Each structure stands twice: as C-alpha cells, then as structure tokens.
C-alpha cells in the first residue's frame, strides 16, 4: 500500500462526460465513487465543469534518451506527458544505442521509474540496430524487467517480407505485437512530402500514399496467414483506413493508430516550406483527414498515438530537405483530438477514453492502465476542462522540443489534473511532483 500518495476528494467531476459525481482517491486507488462523499484529511478538488477520464496511454512516444539528450530526456518527455494527461507512454526504440537489447530497454524503464511522472514502457526494436536484417533478441527484452510487449523499428519499415513474417510469428511466444512503420522504402526514396497537387507545385519529392498502403496490405495478409497480432503505426491515408477496415471485417488481428496532427493538418501547410510541418508519414490531404476521423470514430482505427518527436531547433531552422522529420505532440494531443473529434460531434468523451486509454493499454498489454473509472481500480485519472481555450506556445511547454505544428493556434480543452497511481503529477494545470514512491512501486504490466 502506497501510504504517501495521500487522499483526494474530487467533487463533481463528469465521469466520461456523464453526470457529475464525487471520486475519493486514496492510497493509489479509486476508493469510492458517489455523491456527497466526504473524507477526513482529504485534499478537496472542486471539479465542477470538469470531465474525469482514465489517464491517457500513448502507444507512440520518442523520448530520445539514451543518445539524443539534446532533443529530449526521459525526465522532460515524461513531464510533458503528465501535463498532456498521460499516465503511461511507450518509448520508441530508435534511441542511440537502439533499444534492441534487454540492457537498453531496462535502462529506459529505470529512467522512467526514477522520473516518476508516468509509466514508461519501452518498445523493443524488431531488428538489430533497426537495420532490417536480423531479429533482435525479442524474447530477452520480453523477459527483462521492462517486460516489453510492443516491438517496432519505427522510423524505418520492416520491409523485408520474410523478416516481417518471422517477427509476427516469433512474438506470439510472449503475447507480443509488432508495430509496423508502414513505408515502402523504394517508393519513398528521397521523399519530402505527400505526393499530390501540392508537391507538384512545390517541386518537393512526393511520398505516395501507395507506399504506406501497400505495406499495410501485405502485413494484414501476413498477420492472417500466421495468426499473429499486428499494430499499424500512424496511419495517414484514406486508403490505409479502407485496407484496415477490410482486414478487421475478416477477423484479422490488427490494430491501428492515428496521430493528432494527421487528424487536423494537411499538406497545404507545406506551401510555407516551414520544416515544422515536415513529418513521417507526411501530412496528407483533407480527404485523408476526413477518412482518418471517420475511421477513428467507427473503431477501424483503435487508438491515438502522438508520435511525439522532439528535435533540436537547428534541425528545423534550415532548408526543408535538410530538416528532420517529426513534431511534438504530448502536450497538445488532448486538445487536438477534442477539437477534431469531440467538438465536431464525431465522438463522445467515452469514445475519447477508449481511443486514448483503454484500447492503447490493451495493445501494449498494460494491465493497470486504461481501466474503467470504478471503485477499486488504480487511480490513473485525469480531469479535463473542455471549455478552456488556450493558444499553443512551444516555449511554454515541458518538452525540450519547440517543433509544434500547432504553434499559435487556439485550441480547446485543458488538462487540469493528472493522477498517476493516486498521486497528482499535475494539479491546477501545472506540474506538481512526481510519484513519491515511483522507484519502489511495481510499474506496468502484472
């Protein structure tokens, strides 16, 4: 029992956007839910007008440590995560060294526990050094203290069909999932932006939708053939949504993710040649944005993953072709999804909880995240003010990355409080303190 996490009485929060209720959080769990609750010595939080949601789980985060601590560290990235409403993040494997051994994933896991802002779940590389040639020791990473369940060469596609087949088969031994970065490399050599009307005018090498869709089509057929679990990272095209819908209709065990930026931004923004809009996969067209929203709303796309990718400013203050790909996202995800999905009437807050928490925890096999908001459940909770409006300023963020494509935009929704296993990591919309016993508390999957 984590005695030091204290007692909090949250009054009048709309659970999943429903009727207001009181929640009593004590010793890391939701002790009681009801109306007119009271508790001696409890810190009272007036949650009138706020929505209570399960702590968000990001299936796709780049924390950059080890190796690129000039871009982000586990400490700064998880502070950003907590502020954004997350209680767990999956740290992608493309660090330096690559997270392709038990040693590296345990290092990232330990750094996450020491930081104490969220659960850090390392993702293991599928192939040694992300080189796409030889399987990494997936079993060793699965058996390590980090208990890796998600494997990905994200940033690079596992394009060799035999290697992809083997990876899909092999991870069945420990209930793992291969998260594919779907990008046919030959069709995207030197690619700079979505191939279409805008690339034609701008003279930037096109990145055709078919390069993504052909890999997804191949992979869902492979997954069906070997009876494995496949996750598709950052789906960005209408065609990809169609293929995944087709696969799910046939019972293929595939899940898919969409980023907040692909739910809102289009390749028209590239006309500025400002590399803050350069990302992999690239921003697509409005028709793609609409298809992605529809796919997320109808469950074809299971989760929102941020693909939070901080970069030092010199990697963005340059020519488009020279610039690094990627955008920050942890601190804007909730607002962007509210703007694109909830304020448009496409989804409810209950749907939001599914795509940002419940389904994400299930994909990553996190047993104590993404749980229902019920008495006895772990107190991984957030309180959101859906009526708040704020203007995005990258220099006010906790992430070290200043590369937010939403800079200067006014967005709805603000995370007022984040409870991470009963402890408020965020209170009053600002960082509070890390979980006091993070280093001593068993984290993540049972």
């Amino acid at each position: 029992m984590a005695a030091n996490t204290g007692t909090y009485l949250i009054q009048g929060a709309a659970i999943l956007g429903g009727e207001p209720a009181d929640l009593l959080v004590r010793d890391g769990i939701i002790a009681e839910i009801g109306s007119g609750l009271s508790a001696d010595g409890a810190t009272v939080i007036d949650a009138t007008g706020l929505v209570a949601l399960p702590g968000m789980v990001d299936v796709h985060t780049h924390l950059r440590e080890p190796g690129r601590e000039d871009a982000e560290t586990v400490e700064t990235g998880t502070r950003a995560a907590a502020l954004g409403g997350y209680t767990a993040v999956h740290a992608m494997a493309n660090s330096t060294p690559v997270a392709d051994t038990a040693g590296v994933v345990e290092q990232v896991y330990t750094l996450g526990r020491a930081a104490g802002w969220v659960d850090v779940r390392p993702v293991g590389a599928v192939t040694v050094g992300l080189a796409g040639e030889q399987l990494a020791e997936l079993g060793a990473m699965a058996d390590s203290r980090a208990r890796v369940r998600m494997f990905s060469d994200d940033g690079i596609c596992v394009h060799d069909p035999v290697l992809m087949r083997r990876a899909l088969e092999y991870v069945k031994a420990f209930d793992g999932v291969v998260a594919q970065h779907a990008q046919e490399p030959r069709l995207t050599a030197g690619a700079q932006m979505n191939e279409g009307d805008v690339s034609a005018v701008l003279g930037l090498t096109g990145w055709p939708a078919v390069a993504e869709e052909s890999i997804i089509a191949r992979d869902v057929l492979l997954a069906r053939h070997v009876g494995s679990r496949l996750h598709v990272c950052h789906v960005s095209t209408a065609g990809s949504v169609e293929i995944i819908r087709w696969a799910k209709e046939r019972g293929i065990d595939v899940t898919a993710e969409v980023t907040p930026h692909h739910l809102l931004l289009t390749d028209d923004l590239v006309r500025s040649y400002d590399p803050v809009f350069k990302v992999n996969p690239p921003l697509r067209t409005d028709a793609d944005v609409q298809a992605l929203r529809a796919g997320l709303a109808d469950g074809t796309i299971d989760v929102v993953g941020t693909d939070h990718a901080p970069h030092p400013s010199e990697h963005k203050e340059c020519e488009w072709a020279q610039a690094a790909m990627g955008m920050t996202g942890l601190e804007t995800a909730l607002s962007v999804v509210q703007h694109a999905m909830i304020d448009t009437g496409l989804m409810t807050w209950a749907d939001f909880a599914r795509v940002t928490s419940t389904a994400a925890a299930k994909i990553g096999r996190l047993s104590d995240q993404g749980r229902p908001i019920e008495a006895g459940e772990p107190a991984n909770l957030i309180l959101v003010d859906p009526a708040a409006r704020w203007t995005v300023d990258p220099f006010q963020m906790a992430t070290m990355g200043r590369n937010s494509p939403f800079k200067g935009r006014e967005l709805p929704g603000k995370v007022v409080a984040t409870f991470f296993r009963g402890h408020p990591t965020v209170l009053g919309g600002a960082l509070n303190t890390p979980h006091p016993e993070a280093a001593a508390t068993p984290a993540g999957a049972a």
Partner: protein
Amino acid sequence: MKHLLSTEDLSLSNAIRILDTAEEMSAVGEREVKKLPALRGRTVVNLFFEDSTRTRISFEAAAKRLSADVINFAAKGSSVSKGESLKDTAQTLSAMGADAVVIRHWASGAPHRLAATDWIDAAVINAGDGTHEHPTQALLDAFTMRRHWARLAGTGSEGADLKGMRVAIAGDVLHSRVARSNVWLLRTLGAEVTLVAPPTLLPVGVEKWPCSVSYDLDQTLANGVDAMMMLRVQGERMNASFFPSTREYSRRWGFDDNRLRALDDLGMTDTIIMHPGPMNRGLEISAAAADSPRSTVLAQVRNGVSVRMAALYLLLSGDTREPAAHRAPAYAAAAPSTKESI
C-alpha cells in the same frame, strides 16, 4: 516589391512591369557604355549553393550594369551536418550589409525560407531552387516570346501580354523548375501552354495545372505551336527508369531534324524554338534545330541580363507601390503560395 521568389503568385501587372522595365534596360545594353548609376552603393550577393555559371554571370552582369557592388558566394554543401547552416550564412551576409541576395539552391523552398525568416532583411531573388521555380528564367523566356509576338503583330512590346500565343514545353517537367515557372507566368500572360513529356516525367497532380498535357510531340506540333521550348534532360534520369534509353527519348520527345522539317511542312514559318540551356545536342534538341534561324537560344541569354537588371532595379530602387489592377488569375488564388513573391 520586396522579393522575387516565384511566378506562381506574380500578378499580371507586376509581370508586365518587370518585362517593360527589362525593355528599358535592354536599351542600355545596346549603348557603348553599358552602365547605369541606379544601384550605386548597393550590395548584391550571389549566393550559389549549386553550380550554375551561366545564371551567376548573368546576375553579375545585371548588377554591375546597374553599378551595384557584387559579391559572389559559392557555398556548396551547406547542411547542418557538413558545415555552416543556411541560417548562419544568411545572418553572416546580413551582417555584411547585403541589400539583395540572389540565391541558387538545390533545395526547393530555400529562397522562401530566407524571405520568411528573420535571418536576413535583404531582398531575396530566387535564381532557381531545387525542382521548384526559376522565376527570372521564365521572365526572360516571356520577354523573348513577347518581342516575337509583338513583332508578328506589328506592334511594340511595351505593355503587351501573350494572349493567344501557343507555347509547347517538352521534356523533363517533373524535375524542371523552368517548366513550373513558365507554366504559371505564361498562363498569367494569357498564353496557351501544352506540356509534352513521357508520363514518367510529369508530376502527379499536373492535371490541376493551368495547361494541357500531351504525350505526343508530333500531334502537339500538328495542332499548331508558336513557341516550342525544349527542356534539358538531366544525365541522372537516364539510369532511373524514367525512360528506356536516350535514343528512344530522343525519337519520341526530342526536337530532331524531322520535327524541324515538319514545322516548314505544316507552314508554321514563324514558330520559334527555345531552350534555357545548357543544351544536350542530339538528345532533346538536334544541332540543326539549335542552330536554325528559328532558335532563340542566344537571344534568351541576352534578354536574361535585361530581365535580371529589371528585377534588381525594381526590388532595390525602393519602388514599393503595388498596382491595383490585374489580380493573379484564379488558379493562383486557389493554390496560393504563402509568401508574396514580388
């Protein structure tokens, strides 16, 4: 007028103003003393991240005829990993007091970055960026066409546009900044443009451009052409499956001797043959075509100096008035570039 970055959003009135000013500048080139004092004391930097001797010396001649001080800065490479960044280079030039930067860069959009950021306050002229645009090339092409078109009409060039002129542009449109700048500018000036290329060398999305597209050069010629512009085929395309062989390319899309004869047979006595140079003789254009009286290749080079003088003069002379008439045509409004170009 602040920058000249593209022709996509260049208004008709500004285009005409540059062409008319270039006519005045051209008169200077015919004098014994080819020099005006207009830009005395101003500094023009030729910032070239890519080799291009002809474009650089054309801008250099233009600036010198206007009495500007010229600094040539050849900065090959420029990546954050290999050396000084574009930002640092720009700030260095700014600190040295450059009034105008003429930039040639292999990366599409590099001139837009210079103009959009606070790295440098100078006027930016795009001297060719990647596969995006080469506005002064399109302006010198239009200048050349306009003189020809006005001569046929028996009128002066001053104030004229290219209404009704049929222009075919043949070659590697996909990788051509010259083709892009020409398509936008010629449409603005009222010409009818047909692009002729193998389907592999046309960009996805070309169907939205304000022009016709053909895969058949002979048919295009038979339909009637007043100016035939051939584009250079880059050597590196030849091994990347864009077309099977240079011979096949030349037969189907090159302006060879048979097609030169066809102009005569079709009775198109006034059709000119254009090429931005440098030419691959025997590939996209035959020697006989390049050297024929129809060829305007050398006139284009000569006119290039006049057009660049006009651009430098208008950007640096402090003339900031924006003519109200003649907004850019509809396609530009539907697909705006975020930076104003002039």
